[in-house]
């Protein structure tokens, strides 16, 4: 299956003066797992909302499963499945009632519903709990049920907006196991957003987003290779001075973030002895790492994801979560 699943041309959304998404161009092929990575407030959710026809773009065009998101809204809706950041289940109903309600809204034929219900509930491991009220479910179970529900009507494209946000690490990795499994079972394109770097590595391709723009788009491996160099972090008594000295002595461009000095250098292990030999300031700790996607983000934006979130939203991740909780 090589049909185009999602295509956007100069897709833009502004709220008054504020441009949430600025001229997005991207193409996602059928069968791909495509990830949107970026800090809160980068425009990921706004983009997904536009592709899901919940928000009307203010500029540009986009198509999902071959249908225009503005002119063929219904066609798009019939062909997509959605899992939102915040749960959209009815907690007072049972798991099965939630799925049947969804099937009714999407017009899943009655003759096929029974088998399909069993199939998706098996896939997300909730068949045994189908008769329980959703209120009694843990966060991970709710998320799995939502993924199952999103798949019920066999969508071409499944949108997952922060599928693992607010879950503990163990549950997060089990959700990913389910997502990988469903990729095997279903002929489907997955389009997801995340601000967890490690999760983005599960994707075939990643678009890194910041301030409403895509700043890099490639496979995780290629993105990391583009950084090329290893990341070295050092702890000193005077970070300002250390940055100046690194530039002066080694011609390295270093930045201070999260209380340490970070710079990129080829063959980091070999550079460390040289650094210790020639650096005039005492170094209290050193850390060398292969480039991660976080480093990719940093090499493109000059800041870490966490810094970007602190400045982008003028509030930390926690208050963001609280804010979202109210706004729902």
């Amino acid at each position: 299956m090589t049909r185009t699943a999602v295509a956007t041309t100069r897709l833009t959304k502004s709220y008054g003066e504020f441009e949430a998404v600025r001229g997005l161009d991207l193409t996602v092929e059928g069968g791909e797992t495509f990830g949107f990575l970026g800090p809160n407030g980068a425009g990921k959710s706004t983009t997904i909302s536009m592709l899901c026809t919940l928000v009307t773009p203010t500029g540009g065009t986009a198509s999902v499963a071959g249908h225009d998101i503005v002119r063929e809204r219904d066609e798009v809706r019939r062909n997509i499945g959605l899992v939102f950041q915040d749960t959209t289940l009815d907690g007072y109903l049972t798991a099965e009632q939630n799925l049947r309600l969804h099937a009714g809204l999407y017009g899943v034929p009655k003759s096929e519903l029974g088998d399909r219900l069993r199939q998706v509930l098996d896939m997300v491991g909730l068949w045994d709990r189908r008769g329980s009220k959703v209120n009694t479910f843990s966060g991970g179970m709710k998320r799995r049920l939502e993924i199952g529900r999103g798949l019920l009507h066999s969508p071409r494209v499944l949108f997952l907006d922060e599928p693992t946000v607010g879950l503990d690490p163990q549950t997060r990795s089990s959700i990913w196991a389910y997502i990988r499994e469903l990729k095997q079972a279903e002929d489907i394109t997955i389009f997801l957003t995340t601000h967890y770097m490690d999760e983005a590595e599960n994707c075939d391709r990643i678009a890194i987003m910041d301030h409403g723009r895509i700043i890099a788009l490639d496979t995780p491996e290629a993105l990391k290779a583009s950084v090329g160099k290893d990341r070295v972090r050092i702890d000193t008594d005077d970070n300002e001075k250390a940055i100046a000295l690194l530039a002066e002595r080694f011609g390295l461009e270093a930045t201070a973030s999260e209380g340490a000095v970070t710079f990129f250098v080829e063959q980091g292990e070999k550079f460390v002895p040289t650094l210790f030999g020639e650096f005039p300031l005492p170094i209290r700790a050193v850390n060398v790492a292969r480039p991660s996607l976080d480093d990719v983000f940093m090499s493109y934006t000059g800041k870490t994801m966490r810094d970007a979130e602190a400045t982008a939203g003028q509030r930390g991740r926690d208050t963001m979560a609280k804010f979202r909780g109210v706004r729902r």
Partner: protein
Amino acid sequence: MTAVQTAPVPRIRVPRRSVAGELRAIKIVWQRELIRFFSDRLRILTSLVQPFLFLFVLGTGLSQLTSGGTGGLSLRTFLYPGILAMAVLFTAMASAASIVWDREFGFLREMLVAPVRRSSIVIGKCAGGATVAAFQGVIVIAIAGLVGVPYAPDLVLGVFGIQLLLAFTITAFGVMMSARIKQMQSFMALTQMLILPLYFLSGAVFPASNLPTWLAVLNRIDPLAYAVDPIRRIVFSHLTLAPAVRQRLDAGMTWGSWRVPTLLEVGVVAAIGAVLLAVAIAEFSKTD
């Protein structure tokens, strides 16, 4: 993990939009209201507390002061038609509030992204609220005997019909408001602010005749008055009363000196309901 993929299920094909599909969506949304209402027995009970409190506590207590004023009619019997409207008013408002909860708990989005018209969702919601509220109304109809009102078939059906219409109109009002008011606290504050004035001005607790002008005017513009009056007419038509007492307690809705016919009153409630429903649909059909 249970990977049972032995017999592959054919890919589900979501059908194109159709009238049947929209009707099914209305039914689904309506059904959900019923499932939720009947699984919440506490809500059924608590929403009956207020009508019963008005009828038996207030009705019994105040009758010591007013026995002369009602011309021998029990105050409870006089209050009964107003209580029939009240049961519906409170429950329908609570049903409309559920769409605000749906927004806060996210379920509204599940409905809004479905490939169905927004109007189907709004109609289903209003029909669900009306059904649930009318069910509460039936409970209050059922106690007619306790306040000396006979169980005549035309009385039961007539009252039930008006209750259903009133419930639909109030739910439509609530759903319309919920398109704008997105937080439960604000919605609650608003309904609290509206419900009692609407109720008191409607003439549910006193006869709407011989009122001072300012109160008479407010009574005439209170939509609820156009539901309370016909209910009272139907109930009182089955009571044996001296003409003077009937004239004082059941003078009926007048515009100037013209007594508004029952059908027109019902028409007013229906028209308001239809307008509110149309506005609610328009509000929910907007996208950012």
